[in-house]
């Protein structure tokens, strides 16, 4: 059974919500924290409802709507999201009020909006969708597990169209905390030079990318979601390479069948090493594109990578801003997205042109 990506939507630090050619005018930053370029959310959300929504909820609702519009679907049968951090901003508001007000006179809005499944819930409320609604909160696998759940439900036959996506935000507070772990560069780097910066740390990012998946091909579909796989805490690079080989075998292909690899390089010399080793072992001559210099690093950043890969298949061209190595063949049929988050959460997504 084929699973088609019938529509996509993305809100990111690039102008991805506007439509048009992929990364035609890439935004270049020189900072260690990238924020989303927000569209006018009032086109999808009533003013009375938008006042209770934090940025991450608006991002999710916006990307979900873009995806459904692209697919020509008004009511999906299920909504599945993946988020590692959830609605951090409202969680912070609620906890701060709890402390400051000594657990007295707490307002309901921040509490209601602070749960991880608020995004999926708000999308369902706006669409009037009473179907299956689930949110995966599995750190660097949150988005991938949302996709896996969607694939299983579609294969079971209990849904025709599923809206699945990944969303995460960064707040001042979370950025401060994560900075203390040494995750980010000490000094700002130009984003277009990030992947060649010879230092530790990366740049923080955020965003939302949604996909309308279905078992029937809609007119806007350009790719099938052929496979998704995850690998947790591999002991050494050989385990990753073996896992990729097995994944390709399971999907009836070999490295030679892959036209383009899209990697989650993030400019951290320690974390990018594995991409070099995988490319040397399996894809030495393959064209490679990257995406984290465009969207920043966050646990569900792979959703941006999948969104970009789908757009590359649609355009049959790798935009200059995303190209990392080599030149893609004229016909881009199979794209392998290989990403890892902090060296522990490795994932593979295979897209095939349809």
């Amino acid at each position, binding site marked *: 059974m084929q699973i088609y990506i019938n529509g996509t939507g993305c809100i990111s630090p690039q102008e991805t919500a506007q439509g048009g050619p992929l990364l035609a005018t890439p935004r270049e930053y020189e900072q260690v924290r990238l924020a989303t370029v927000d569209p006018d959310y009032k086109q999808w959300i009533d003013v009375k409802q938008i*006042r*209770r929504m934090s940025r991450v909820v608006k991002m999710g609702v916006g990307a979900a709507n873009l995806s459904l519009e692209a697919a020509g679907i008004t009511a999906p049968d299920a909504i599945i999201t993946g988020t590692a951090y959830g609605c951090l901003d409202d969680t912070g508001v609620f906890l701060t009020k709890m402390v400051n007000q000594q657990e007295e006179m*707490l*307002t309901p*809005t921040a509490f209601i909006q602070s749960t991880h499944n608020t995004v999926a819930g708000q999308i369902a409320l706006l669409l009037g969708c009473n179907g299956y609604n689930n949110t995966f909160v599995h750190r660097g696998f949150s988005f991938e597990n949302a996709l896996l759940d969607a694939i299983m439900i579609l294969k079971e036959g209990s849904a025709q169209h599923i809206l699945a996506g990944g969303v995460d935000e960064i707040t001042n507070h979370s950025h401060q905390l994560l900075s203390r772990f040494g995750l980010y560069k000490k000094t700002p780097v130009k984003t277009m030079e990030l992947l060649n910066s010879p230092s530790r740390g990366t740049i923080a990012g955020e965003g939302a990318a949604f996909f309308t998946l279905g078992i029937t091909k809609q007119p806007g579909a350009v790719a099938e979601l052929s496979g998704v796989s995850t690998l947790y805490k591999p002991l050494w690079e050989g385990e990753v390479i073996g896992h990729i080989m097995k994944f390709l075998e399971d999907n009836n292909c070999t490295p030679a069948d892959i036209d383009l690899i899209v990697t989650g390089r993030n400019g951290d010399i320690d974390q990018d090493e594995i991409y070099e080793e995988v490319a040397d072992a399996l894809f030495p001559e393959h064209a490679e594109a990257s995406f984290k210099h465009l969207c920043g690093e966050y646990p569900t950043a792979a959703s941006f990578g999948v969104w970009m890969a789908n757009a590359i298949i649609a355009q049959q061209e790798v935009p200059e801003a995303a190209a990392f190595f080599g030149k893609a063949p004229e016909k881009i049929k199979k794209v392998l997205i290989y990403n890892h988050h902090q060296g522990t959460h490795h994932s593979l997504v295979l897209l095939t042109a349809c």
Partner: protein
Amino acid sequence: MADLKAQIIEQLNLQEVAPDSIGNDQPLFTKEGLGLDSIDALELIVLLQQHYNIRIANPEEGPKIFHSVRTMAVYITENQTVKA
């Protein structure tokens, strides 16, 4: 009442609503009025506690108290007078 309107706007995060645009007798919870909902009602109860130290003892009085800005202001005045 101008202060109360500003507090309501802040508490409920009523974007694009100016204090002057809320009529003193405009219903708060009908579509023809401000169109507030049950979550807003809870927020308004918290507002009375936070700003005026007033607790609503009888929930059945809620619809009457929160009918409009004027009814809220009257309730605040009466209860603050009692407290004083």
